[in-house]
């Protein structure tokens, strides 16, 4: 993924707008760059991924609040939609992960942020969208050979649904799949309460957990 150095000057304004969570400015800057002839792929790798990795670096030293992360997520989503109206091209350098917002909850900004972060880190991400029944989640996990499932929840009534995920995966022999939960409604719970492997403080924290599992740091 793109490092924090060697950022083309042309992309600096875009990165600043993204990190400020100013989605209008980020969109305007994206359109300007496209008109100037910059390929969409460069904007993603040198612009979006750089902004994401900077946010990630800051997240390790000081906690970001929900609003700031949601703002950046909204700006990044807007830029991606602008660049790829049909959806992001797939990339499976580092394995497959499934992201979803569960049945009963149609709010998927949190899930979209995790998706951006994971794509930025080079995973293939299967997005099951919002209001996703657990059966669909399990079937997709099996079909796509996913290593982990990441669930985001904005509404606290979704908690019981989250608790069913692991049992449903096990019932289909998917015991080895990691389950990570995050989002406004879920992060106040302990992993044991939700029956998940990890409750992420934010999208970056969740992605880092997946990274640690892949590198075998967490058994």
């Amino acid at each position, binding site marked *: 993924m793109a490092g924090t150095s060697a950022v083309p000057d042309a992309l600096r304004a875009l990165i600043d707008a993204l990190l400020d969570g100013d989605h209008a400015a980020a969109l305007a800057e994206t359109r300007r760059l496209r008109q100037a002839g910059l390929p969409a792929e460069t904007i993603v790798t040198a612009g979006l991924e750089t902004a994401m990795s900077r946010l990630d670096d800051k997240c390790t030293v000081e906690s970001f609040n929900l*609003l700031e992360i949601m703002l950046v997520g909204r700006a990044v989503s807007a830029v991606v939609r602008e660049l790829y109206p049909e959806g992001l091209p797939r990339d499976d350098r580092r394995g497959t992960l499934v992201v979803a917002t569960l049945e009963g909850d*149609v709010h998927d900004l949190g899930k979209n942020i995790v998706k951006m972060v994971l794509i930025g880190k080079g995973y293939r991400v299967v997005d099951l969208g919002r209001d996703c029944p657990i059966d669909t989640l399990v079937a997709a996990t099996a079909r796509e050979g996913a290593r982990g499932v990441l669930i985001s929840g904005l*509404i*606290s009534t979704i*908690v*019981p649904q989250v608790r069913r995920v692991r049992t449903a995966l096990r019932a289909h022999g998917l015991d080895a799949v990691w389950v990570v939960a995050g989002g406004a*409604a879920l992060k106040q719970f302990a992993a044991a309460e939700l029956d998940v492997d990890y409750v992420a403080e934010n999208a970056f924290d969740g992605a880092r957990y997946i990274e640690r599992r892949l590198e075998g740091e967490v058994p």
Partner: protein
Amino acid sequence: MPRLTVLVQGKPHVLSFRPGASLREILDRSDYRVRSACLGHGACGLCQVRLLSGEGGPHQPAEQFQLSASDLTEGKRLACQMRPTTDLTVEILNPPPPSGWRTPPEGLTYAPAGFAADRPPPPGVSHPVGAAVDLGTTHLSIAVHSLASGQRLAERWGKNPQGRFGSDVVTRLMAAQRPEVAEALAFAARHAIGEAIADVARREGLDCRAFSRVTVVGNTAMLALLADRNHHLLLQPAYWMAPLECTTIDGAAWAQAWGIARQAQIELVPPLGGFVGSDLIAGLVACRLTEGSAPALFIDFGTNSEIALWTGSDLWVTATAGGPAFESGAGSCGTPAEAGAVFRVAETADGGLAFRVLDDDCAHGLCGSGLVDLVACLRRRQRLDAKGRFAEGAKNFAFAVGEREFSLGLRDIDALQRAKAAVGAGIAALSAVAGLPLAALQRVVVAGLFGRYLDIANAQAIGLLPSVPVSHIELVGNTAAAGATALLLSTQAQAMANRLRQQAQLINLAHRPEFEDAFLEHLYLRPTEAS
């Protein structure tokens, strides 16, 4: 306000009070109750105190009857007969055993006006009394009334003991999936209602067997857990909008366990549907939200906040869970709005902060209203930005109240932002679905303990309340308890509740696409445009 110093086992505790109440009434709200066994007219003689300094007023006839001449010269008084108006110090001579029940804070509970006590009491009970119960997620409150005259006899409030199973409804519902935990949860709530009734009977000199009607309102989860009925269905999305049968109980067994009249009517008022409970219906009855054509908004702030919007012809309601920041403050320095809570924070002319503490001199935390004040003060001074970050990258704001030091952290601010956003987005969703701009509101009724102590200007400054003219905003206290009282006593209130049930249209926020953008918008600590 004058100050009352209470000596308990040699240790002084300072309370402030409003002149007019008896010393017993003042102490009944605090952690330092006196013994008693009558309604406070001097009949039992148990509420003895010694006046150590200050003015207690002339001895009343009941004191001359209950106390000896030497008692009187030693400064002994009956707390129920003294109405102090200036600073004084008293010693409680015969403290009662510890109890979790208190008189609710001043101004929190009330009996709504205009509802005639015309529901006939069950036959065969002499001097029948009834209890209106508001079973909240955090607190339980009861109001005891004569069923003959409608007169209010006593009130109590205390913690909902289910709190030890988790502070929010979802955690308790999940815990209740194990049948033995469900039983324990039901027992805890039922037992607490019985205890509160017994506390009233004992301390007010009433016969337990005179209790012949108990009317209970609560949010859906609380009622389902109390009755131990169908609470598992609330965990399924299909039931988030549907009516839930959760009010069928074995009344005779409950009456026996509580030691009240055998033929007592025990009524659990059915919830509206989904997570919107009968506490909301009771609240709307109490404030008569739907009478008249003026557009009105009702917000009952709590761990589970309930919101209703009346357009003048249509009633839209929803429930939204934003965490405990309103009821218990936030994080390390949070506390419920009880004795020792900082409930008001104001800026002083010299640039400092002034703190007001509820019913005690020793602060032990910041409750929801204090948190709102402090955050608004920090915003005005630009110590905190609209996104919830401290100036110059600070990690916290340290402050001292008396000798206690507190630290307000970024996490605490984030918790307030999330609770605020859940309510703000709920209001926005109702406004959108009803097609009613918030600027059209003629009334904004703010209910709940948190609302009781709220500073309106500060709440508007951080966007917790819509920016309508201050004169449109009513801070009304516990409307659920007031409405339960009306339902206990009045056929008119019962008819009104039935009408509301027909009218109310339930909105499930989980399926409102505008919720997410509104949630983000309301995370900001800045005024909401009343557009």
